[in-house]
């Protein structure tokens, strides 16, 4: 694999497109065709809608509520959708707004037994990178520790690490890395300055990577032959 060749698509594609497309009308001759049209487009998105809601809320019941509410809003506002091609991005934007409204409402109330609603700050290890822990400047005969790490990393490990992040960090990283929002869009959605989005994202990544590193060591996912571990 050449370096140039593998860089053809180095950046992830955002999942959200045409988010603000509203205002014109799609007409349906009969209610049945409208329902059929809606359900045909909704069905392939359900796992991503639910998964995104689950990452945002951390709670299956809350995720189901958010998805059901977003789908209901989309159905009742379908006449406002300008372009059928925009349906997916439009629906995900409704989902996000539904979550953010509920999240803000809950943050105004005292959180039982937790400090998740506060702005996380001083406990962060902002300089930690997983890559620095794993990367060896030479080839190991059994392969690279990076590959070993990714091969051993299960989706549930990652979900657990994401869910363990403080609310403000988790929501920011999910909006950017799962949903593909720009930093400016996240700032607008959450009503915080752009700098806050950047710092939350940076801290979220550091915490996430540190948690994954600790998990990898505890689970024996990375093993450096001869010294019982990879810690330097």
């Amino acid at each position, binding site marked *: 694999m050449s370096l140039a060749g*593998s*860089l053809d698509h180095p950046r*992830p594609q*955002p999942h959200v497109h045409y988010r603000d497309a509203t205002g014109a009308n799609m007409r349906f001759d009969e*209610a049945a065709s409208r329902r059929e049209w809606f*359900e045909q487009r909704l069905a392939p998105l359900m796992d991503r809608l639910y998964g995104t809601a*689950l*990452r945002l809320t951390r709670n299956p019941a809350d995720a189901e509520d958010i998805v059901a509410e977003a789908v209901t809003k989309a*159905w009742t506002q379908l006449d406002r959708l300008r372009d059928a091609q925009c349906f997916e991005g439009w629906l995900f934007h409704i989902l996000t707004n539904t979550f953010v409204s509920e999240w803000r409402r809950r943050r105004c109330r005292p959180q039982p037994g937790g400090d998740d609603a506060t702005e996380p700050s001083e406990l962060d290890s902002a300089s930690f990178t997983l890559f620095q822990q794993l990367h060896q400047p030479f080839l190991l005969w059994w392969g690279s520790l990076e590959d070993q790490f990714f091969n051993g990393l299960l989706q549930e490990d990652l979900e657990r690490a994401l869910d363990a992040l403080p609310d403000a960090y988790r929501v920011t990283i999910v909006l950017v890395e*799962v949903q593909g929002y720009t930093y400016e869009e996240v700032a607008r959605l959450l009503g915080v300055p752009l700098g806050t989005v950047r710092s939350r994202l940076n801290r979220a990544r550091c915490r996430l990577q540190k948690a994954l590193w600790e998990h990898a060591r505890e689970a024996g996912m990375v093993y450096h032959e001869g010294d019982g571990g990879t810690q330097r």
Partner: protein
Amino acid sequence: MSPRALSCEEVIERLFDYLDRELDPQQAADIEWHLQRCHDCFTRAEFERRLRDRVAATGTVKAPPRLQQRIRTLLDRFDESGTRQ
């Protein structure tokens, strides 16, 4: 648009902005130009991209059948009441 030579420190500093598509085309081209020539930075970029892809994949989880049913029921109710807006 000719790429500007960046140091490894500059590239690593902007790496997440690059992966998050936050850079303008000139800045992105500068990063890409460096990554095509620097194995260390390329390796780091590839690692962060792989991890980012794995995080993105956590946004897809099989929707429970009861949610699918709940949505069908909601749409049925709208149909029955003839309510759209």
